Structures are given as structure tokens and as C-alpha cells.
């Protein structure tokens, strides 16, 4: 397949090539490594991002009682546990047939925006600012948060405090900063007391202000290095994300929207409880991470991009004023060039952080947070799907529960997994642009990592599965009855 050679996925003759590895990829969450194969002239023939670990959650959760899932499965990831906590809860809301009370939904949303805020702050300030503020090939010894603290103490402090605030919102709604228990099937186990609300209100204006400054920093970076930021690892990709009925950005709930690389809508407001009709997964022998793709386009062409860049560019508007204003500027910047740039991720991410801060401010003033009607349930279902827009992108949780309340099947497609192919495309592009034919230096290799970091991959999340879970596709008719079962073998062959 010549195709895969020039897209650098698989070298024609690996045996007589030199191997260079970036292991581990650092300043990302989780465990991954990049390998490059080069010839004697330093021409690059193969670039791969490997996800090197698995933990088998989907397997050992089988047999556990369903109400354990939100607490157990969030342990996939310590950076965005809330996203898993909530995605699982949403799936289980379906299983227990619940429609959330206003208090339950708002407490969960508050928790989620806290998660967005802390995760985006962490990524931008603690992990990426060293690259962006010092330069991609700056001194490795200084190229970290410690260096930032020394060189830009104010920025560092701001990052630390932004993250702290997000974590505090989570602590108050989930009981704990990391791996809390606040969200349960059918609702939440606590509301937000007046005292807790006032505690959060006292700093929110500062947080909104700092979030605006953060957007400003991201914009300035673009303005100062226009060519670099526009072109670095740039590639075209299809997109996937949730949007509200009215097309607004909604990070907690909505319908699936997919657009191709030219902006044509593939599907919109799609009911995610049948996600398996539009998303399949592929597996490759060199990674434990799956490769999802849009069914209508097939495994070769169907890969896509999720996360802030997709959400900000594909939503019709952002329902909070400051963030909406920022979105407009972003879309208009330099004829819209930032919207398609890999490094545009950072800017988009800061816009979302601002949006989250605004949402928190709005929610804190909502008396429903003090409501006492926390849990509901209705007609029991055997299957539940929960989808949420996690910091890194669309997150899908899917459970099947038997009559004894035990989970009998679980499938998770996490944000970073959606971006698997996109990240590989990104680093291959960077390899072509900056590394091909040159003597490799630490600084040059860091360019590869900069491209990966742009996606804010959470490799911990991505390595939850015991390898690939073969996807079983069920075609359901309108009333949910099974029509036929279509299965996909590991190399994409479909069989009835």
C-alpha cells in the first residue's frame, strides 16, 4: 500500500532503517511514545505514536453492580475524572430511567465546568506554556513549569490559581478534588449549600478576568509568530462534537454533529444513544489504542478530530457573551487561518476556559443549586449510553446491565482515542516540515511533542481498554427492536 508509505504510517523496508524513539512523551497525561524510522540520509520513513499501556477496565468492570461504575470508571483518568464520572452517570441515568431534577443537572454541570476550567488551565499553563513562552527548542532544563515560575512568576501563579479554583468547584460538588462521588445514577448525592456557594462566588470575578487574559495570551502568541502558529503541523480533518438543539456549544449535553474537512455536514443533532450507527473503531498492531472512524467514510478516510478546536469552530455560537466575543475574534483572525491550525487548539482551549468560567458564575447565582430534590428514577432499561464533551473532546460511555444489576458489557470511546489518527497525522506533518533530512536534536524532537501536546491527549484515558474491544453494531429500528447484527473484524472486514 504505497499510500501508507507516503503518509509515513508504515515504512516499506523497516529492517534497514534507524530507529529513534521519544519515550516517554512528556508533559502529556499518560503513557505514550513516538518512534521514527530514518534512513542513512535522515529521511523519515515512518512515524508512529504508540499507546503502550492497557489496564483492562472494560473487562473487569463486568459483573460489578452498575452503581459502582461512575466511581470506578473515573479511575481511568486523574485529570478528567469528572468527565468519566458524569458520562457514566448519564449512561446510568438511562438505565434507571431517570430524568434529572433541575438541582441534579445544575450541580453536575457546575462540576463539569469546574473540570473544564482546571483541565484547560493545567494544560495551558503547567504543561504547554514552557514550549509556547520559551520556544519549542529552548533549553530542556528550563522548559518546564519550574522554568516558567522563575521567568514568568505572575503567569505561573495565575495558572496555578485558575486550576485551583476549578478543583475547588469539583471538591464542593463531588466531595473530593480528584475521584469524588457526587454524581450517582439518577442524580447527585449533595447540593451546593449557601456557604459553599458564597465561598466560590468570592473569587469568580477574578477567575473570569484571568480567563480573559488567558485568551489574550493565546491570541498574542499567534500574532507574534503568525507563520509558525498557522502552519505548524497543520492538516485538514473532519470534526465531531456535541451541540445544543439550537447549535450552541454545550459541553454537558447535546446531539452529535460531524462535518467533513471542507465544512459539509455529515450528520447533525444525531441522537448519541445510537452512536454505533455512525462511529466504528479500528485497531492497528502497533498501538493498544483504538482508531475510531466515521462509518460513512470508512476506516481509511473516516478519521476525525475532536476537542476544543472542533467545538469552537463547529458550534454556531457560544451561549456566554465574553466567550462568544472571543470565538468571533478567533474565527475572524487572519482570514480564519487559526481555526484550522494545530496550534489553534491552544487558543480555542482558552476560549472554552473563559466559557466555563462564565457558566460557573451564572450557575452559582441559580437557587436551584440549593434544591433538595436530588435523585429520580423511572422505568429500568438494560442499555445506557452517556456522551459528554470532556476537556479533550467527545467522550462515550456505553453499558449493558442484566436483571441482577450487574454490568455485563461496557464500551468506552474516550476523547483522546477519537484523536488517535489525527495526532498521528499531526506529528507526521511536523516530521515532514521540520525533521526530514536533518540531524535530529532534542529540540527538533520536541517539535513532535509540541504537536502532540496541542491535542492535550490524555493517554491515561486512552489506555483503559484491554486492547481493542471488537465493536458489535446493532441496527435498531425505530422502537428499538433488533433488526440485524453487523460485526467488524479487526481489519475492517464487515460480516453479517
Amino acid at each position, binding site marked *: 500500500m504505497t499510500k501508507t508509505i507516503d503518509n509515513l504510517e508504515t515504512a516499506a523496508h523497516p529492517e534497514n532503517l534507524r530507529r529513534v524513539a521519544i519515550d516517554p512523551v512528556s508533559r502529556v497525561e499518560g503513557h505514550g511514545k513516538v518512534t521514527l524510522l530514518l534512513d542513512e540520509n535522515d529521511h523519515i520513513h515512518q512515524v508512529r505514536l504508540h499507546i503502550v499501556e492497557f489496564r483492562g477496565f472494560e473487562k473487569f468492570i463486568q459483573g460489578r453492580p452498575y452503581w459502582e461504575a461512575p466511581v470506578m470508571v473515573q479511575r481511568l483518568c486523574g485529570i478528567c475524572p469528572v468527565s468519566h464520572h458524569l458520562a457514566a452517570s448519564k449512561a446510568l441515568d438511562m438505565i434507571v430511567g431517570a430524568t434529572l431534577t433541575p438541582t441534579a443537572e445544575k450541580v453536575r454541570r457546575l462540576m463539569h465546568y469546574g473540570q473544564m476550567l482546571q483541565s484547560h488551565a493545567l494544560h495551558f499553563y503547567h504543561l504547554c506554556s514552557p514550549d509556547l513562552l520559551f520556544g519549542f527548542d529552548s533549553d530542556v532544563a528550563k522548559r518546564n513549569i519550574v522554568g516558567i515560575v522563575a521567568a514568568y512568576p505572575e503567569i505561573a501563579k495565575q495558572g496555578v490559581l485558575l486550576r485551583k479554583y476549578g478543583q475547588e468547584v469539583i471538591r464542593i460538588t463531588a*466531595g473530593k478534588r480528584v475521584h469524588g462521588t457526587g454524581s450517582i445514577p439518577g442524580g447527585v448525592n449533595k447540593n451546593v449549600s449557601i456557604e459553599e456557594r458564597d465561598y466560590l462566588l468570592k473569587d469568580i470575578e477574578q477567575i473570569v478576568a484571568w480567563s480573559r487574559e488567558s485568551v489574550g495570551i493565546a491570541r498574542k502568541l499567534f500574532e507574534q509568530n503568525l507563520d509558525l502558529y498557522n502552519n505548524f503541523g497543520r492538516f485538514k480533518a473532519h470534526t465531531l462534537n456535541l451541540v445544543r438543539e439550537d447549535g450552541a456549544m454545550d459541553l454537558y449535553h447535546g446531539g452529535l454533529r460531524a462535518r467533513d474537512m471542507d465544512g459539509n455536514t455529515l450528520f447533525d443533532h444525531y441522537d448519541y444513544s445510537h452512536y454505533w450507527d455512525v462511529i466504528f473503531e479500528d485497531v492497528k498492531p502497533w498501538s493498544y489504542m483504538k482508531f475510531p472512524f466515521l462509518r460513512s467514510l470508512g476506516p481509511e478516510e473516516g478519521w476525525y478530530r475532536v476537542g476544543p478546536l472542533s467545538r469552537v469552530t463547529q458550534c454556531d455560537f457560544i451561549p456566554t457573551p465574553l466567550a462568544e466575543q472571543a470565538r468571533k475574534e478567533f474565527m475572524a483572525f487572519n482570514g480564519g487561518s487559526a481555526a484550522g491550525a494545530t496550534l489553534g487548539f491552544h487558543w480555542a482551549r482558552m476560549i472554552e476556559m473563559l466559557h466555563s468560567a462564565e457558566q460557573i458564575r451564572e450557575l452559582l447565582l441559580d437557587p436551584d443549586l440549593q434544591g433538595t430534590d436530588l435523585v429520580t428514577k423511572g422505568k429500568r432499561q438494560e442499555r445506557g449510553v452517556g456522551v459528554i464533551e470532556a476537556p479533550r473532546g467527545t467522550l462515550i460511555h456505553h453499558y449493558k446491565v442484566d436483571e441482577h444489576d450487574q454490568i455485563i458489557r461496557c464500551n468506552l470511546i474516550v476523547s483522546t482515542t477519537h484523536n488517535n489518527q489525527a495526532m498521528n497525522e499531526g506529528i507526521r506533518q511536523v516530521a515532514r516540515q521540520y525533521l526530514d533530512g536533518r540531524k535530529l536534536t532534542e529540540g527538533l524532537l520536541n517539535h513532535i511533542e509540541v504537536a502532540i501536546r496541542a491535542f492535550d491527549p490524555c493517554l491515561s484515558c486512552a489506555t483503559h481498554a484491554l486492547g481493542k474491544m471488537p465493536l458489535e453494531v446493532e441496527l435498531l429500528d425505530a422502537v428499538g427492536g433488533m433488526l440485524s447484527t453487523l460485526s467488524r473484524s479487526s481489519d475492517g472486514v464487515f460480516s453479517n
Partner: protein
Amino acid sequence: MNDTPTFQLDGASVPFEPGQTVMQAALSAGHYIPHLCYHPEFKPHGSCKLCTVKVGGRTAASCTMPAETGLEVESDIDEINALRRTLVQMLFAEGNHFCPSCEKSGNCMLQALGYDLEVHTAGFRHLYPDRPLDASHPDILLDFNRCILCELCVRASSEVDGKNVFALAGRGITKHLIVNAKSGLLADTDIELADKAMQVCPVGVILKKRVGFSVPIGERRYDKRPISEQALDDAPRAPAGARHE
């Protein structure tokens, strides 16, 4: 009575009624002695050995030791606490105790004891036994992974509920909890939610279904006060809450 008999516990004088054990008297007087298989409403049993104390240089389980005038009991001393620490570690290594995803976390006596004794690790090599759940009952879940073989459910079911739903089988390290049904399934026993046996499990084995994590972190029994400050809650009392009375 102004001349109630007393004994010494860690230097404090503890009054007791004739017939009481050292444990019962101590708890009644608000002095905590660690325990797992002791329950204020049941006949002492003496299997967990967490309540081991030192009396006149010899060690004994305080839950089965009759209180006597003039006894000099040492409980909260390094040597004994080290022993208790090891016992807690043994229990953690023996079963599958995954506190992070256990709904009993925060209300679990084993966990609370670990906290109180500053147990940072099980230390021993974990046995990771294979103990499948019994979810057959519509309202009750049994997660044997967490069983510490205290026999409280066995005693509650026979002594209070008059049902004998639970029993112990096997021997030594293979000892395990079984239920009273040919199928071996809880669904085929006559257990009910209101049974005393439902209320006594110190860990997370016998669970009411679909309750899960409904109590928020911070409001669970041992979040607020360490177990060692809750002695009086375990002072001896008459069997209560049994639906048969």
C-alpha cells in the same frame, strides 16, 4: 452503688458490672479498644483478635476476657498497636479490598481501623483470591471480596433473625462465607432487607442494592470522627432492630 468493682485500663480506672468482659466495661466507660468481630448486641466471639490486650505480661482478647477487680490492662501501647497493625494488614492482604470503588468506604470499620492504626500499606503479598459476587437477590448484593470472616452476619441471622441464612465453610485460608441454599445463591434463602443480618456487616459484603454512593464524602461515619472516638456507640446493649421482636 458507690463500691462498684473496677479494673485498670492504661492507667485509668474502669468500673464494671459482674459478668461483663473487659471490652464491654471499657466501651461502656467510653474507653475505645479496637475490634471488628465484637458487636454490642452479640455474644463475644474473639476471632479477629484486634482487641488483644496485655494483662500481667500475657496477651488475651479483651472481648472474651471476664472483667475482674484489680486487673491491670494495657491496650493503647506500642507493642499491642503494632500487633493490631499487622492484623489489619493481614486482613487487607487476604481479601480483595479496593476502597476507592467500594460503596462502604467511609463507613467501613476495617478501613477506619487502618486509619486509626496508621496502616499505610498491607505490606504482605496480596493473595488476590477469586471471590465472585452473589447478585441473585433482587434487593441484596453480596460482595465476598471484602469478607473478613467476623461471623457477625452468621450470628445475627441465627441469634436474632432465627434464620441461619449465613454460615462458614472451609478451613484455614480457604474459609469462606456461604448462604443457606442448595443453589448456593442468596435469592434462594429467606433473607429480607429488614433482617438484623443486613445491618451488622462491618465491611462491604452485605449491601442493600441500588444505594451505592448516596452518602456524600464528608458525611460518612468515619469522615467526621476517628473510630477511636466512637467507643460509646459500641457499648453493650440489648439486641434491637430485629423485625421479629
